[in-house]
């Protein structure tokens, strides 16, 4: 059991962790989520007694980490996959950690087998890939067979097989009654692994609930409604009717409407009632990733700019109605235009344009056979090869 009370860490003027209080219970995988720079690693380091909190405290099993008797046998941690002397072999690295806690050398070979590094155990760890480094870090965490395990971004750099293995390992460790605390910035990963979620942003606690609760609280079902493109007045009419019926209407890029608060048959009835044809009426569920992004919106420290795209996207048509957010008074202020990914099914793939035969450019593009003459009338069966060569310069 890990317990943080009013945990605060300031670096000069910047507050990395701000009055964070939470509990991590045994027997469950607790996901620790937050955007980059939100204070996850700082919190992890404070739990391990590496950083001193500016205020508040954090305990493991009731003790501050630094006063735990034989800490490596009680707490295992993966903080930094690259936190290994590159010139030291994996086995010696683990052996030096094992000796600290009075763990026999046989256990070192055991955990090397568990993480699948037994074949490279005696190689210098500087040659390890990021994934192998992660496995070595996980081996170090498992070494003392501890009751409390902390993993900071454990799936970084792992291949799909490795990710699958880590997921199962976490669940297994939790099922054995251990406390498992895993940080990640990937909601989708946590949705598959964690039982409980602690979400922070800018060092503050945003959410502390079970994954099931998080899903039901944050993922809203909605319907996508598309009307014929030739009738903007139909769109207007339908929107008005939907809002009147208590629905909430958002405009999507591409002209479709996103409707929440009304069941699909009701939407269909309303459209029928105001004599509007529908081209699409489909049920959708917001992804957990989307819910997480909405939760941490505005709390992201490092955001990539979407400036260039904004000028190219058509303004949402609903803006002109003056009441774009729909009828709910308690509806949170949200941007009318929702991100395209996740909501908008891409148009069916158009048939690829027939490759333009370009016999003249062929010898230029394919210098490996420059002597080949380009016949004026080539049989059409040679067209694919032509396409290949004309694509090369790109």
């Amino acid at each position, binding site marked *: 059991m890990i317990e943080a009370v009013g945990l605060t860490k300031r670096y000069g003027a910047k507050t990395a962790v701000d009055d964070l209080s939470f509990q991590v219970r045994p027997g469950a995988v607790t996901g620790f989520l937050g955007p980059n720079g939100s204070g996850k690693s700082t919190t992890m380091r404070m739990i391990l007694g590496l950083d001193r909190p500016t205020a508040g405290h954090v305990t493991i099993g009731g003790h501050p*980490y630094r006063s735990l008797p034989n800490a490596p046998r009680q707490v295992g941690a993966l903080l930094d996959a690259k936190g290994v002397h590159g010139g030291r072999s994996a086995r010696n690295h683990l052996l030096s950690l094992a000796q600290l*806690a009075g763990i026999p050398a046989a256990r070192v070979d055991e955990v090397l087998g568990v993480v699948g590094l037994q074949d490279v155990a005696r190689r210098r760890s500087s040659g390890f890939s990021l994934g192998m480094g992660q496995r070595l870090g996980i081996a170090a965490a498992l070494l003392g067979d501890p009751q409390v395990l902390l993993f900071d971004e454990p799936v970084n750099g792992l291949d799909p097989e490795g990710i699958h293995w880590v997921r199962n390992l976490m669940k297994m460790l939790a099922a054995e009654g251990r406390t498992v605390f895993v940080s990640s910035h990937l909601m989708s990963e946590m949705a598959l692994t964690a039982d409980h979620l602690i979400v922070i942003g800018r060092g503050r606690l945003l959410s502390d609930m079970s994954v099931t609760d998080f899903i039901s609280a944050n993922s809203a079902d909605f319907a996508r409604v598309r009307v014929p493109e030739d009738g903007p007045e139909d769109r207007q009419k339908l929107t008005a009717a939907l809002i009147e019926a208590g629905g909430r209407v958002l405009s999507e890029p591409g002209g479709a409407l996103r409707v929440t608060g009304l069941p699909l048959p009701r939407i269909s009835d309303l459209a029928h009632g105001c004599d509007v044809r529908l081209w699409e009426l489909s049920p959708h569920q917001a992804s957990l990733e989307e819910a997480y992004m909405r939760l941490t919106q505005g709390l992201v420290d490092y955001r990539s700019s979407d400036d260039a795209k904004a000028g190219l996207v058509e303004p949402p048509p609903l803006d002109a109605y003056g009441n774009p957010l729909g009828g709910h008074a308690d509806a949170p202020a949200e941007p009318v235009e929702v991100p395209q990914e996740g909501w908008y099914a891409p148009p069916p793939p158009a048939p690829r344009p027939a490759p333009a035969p370009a016999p003249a450019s062929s010898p230029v593009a394919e210098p490996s056979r420059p002597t080949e003459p380009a016949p004026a009338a080539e049989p059409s069966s040679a067209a694919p090869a032509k396409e290949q060569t004309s694509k090369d310069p790109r």
Partner: protein
Amino acid sequence: MASVPAVLASEWTKIRSVSSTTWTLISAFAVTVVMGAALSALLNATFDDLSEAEQATFDPTFVSFSGTILGQLAMVVFGVLVVGTEYSSGMIRTSLAAVPQRATFLFSKITVAGVLALLVGLLTSFVSFFLSQAMLGDRGTDIGADNVLRAVVGGGLYMGLIAIFSMGVAAMLRSSMLSLGILMPFFFLVSQILSAVPGAKDVAQYFPDQAGSKIMQVVPDALNSEPAPYGPWGGLGIMVLWVLAAVLGGFLVLKRRDA
């Protein structure tokens, strides 16, 4: 609480499992011995070219430690790397998570590495002495002569103390590059130059290497060197104070700072 023997065993595993340990210590040994022997042979061959005063104060023991000036640099690298790689690799977080008692961690590390450096230093010193005396032939001295054993043992202590001093500095600066960038020019250039400048000499003779190297002299003002206001053991004492200050500084930094 991780017990001290456990931490010592762990630190020994760490030290013996990286090749930088082997190479820096072999360099320290080889450079000191070879350079000492070569200079002894050279001096033996050109002894008649030396001035009257230099011949009169010829110190065959001190000459055999001429290689120390270069060999100590390898010891500096050893000391810096032992501590500095913990920081540069990020291993420090793993180490401190495993040993939350930072005093135990640092002092165990310095003990293991320091004892190793002292042993290698003593080996270097004795081999260097006997090889150089063989090169000097009739002009050489004997280990049984007055103060010679003290100088030879002192030469080994000097090498070890230089390494421990470097460990303390690296713990304070928390970076191998920074520590080497400061210590190497200091020991190789700054200290040597300042000790030759008339005004700065009075200060420079209290530098760790200048004070400590007095232990290796049998003839107090050998080869035109200025007599110091402290004896050989006094000089080593000054060096030990420097070492203690560096290690204490390193400990305070480790204790106060976040890892």
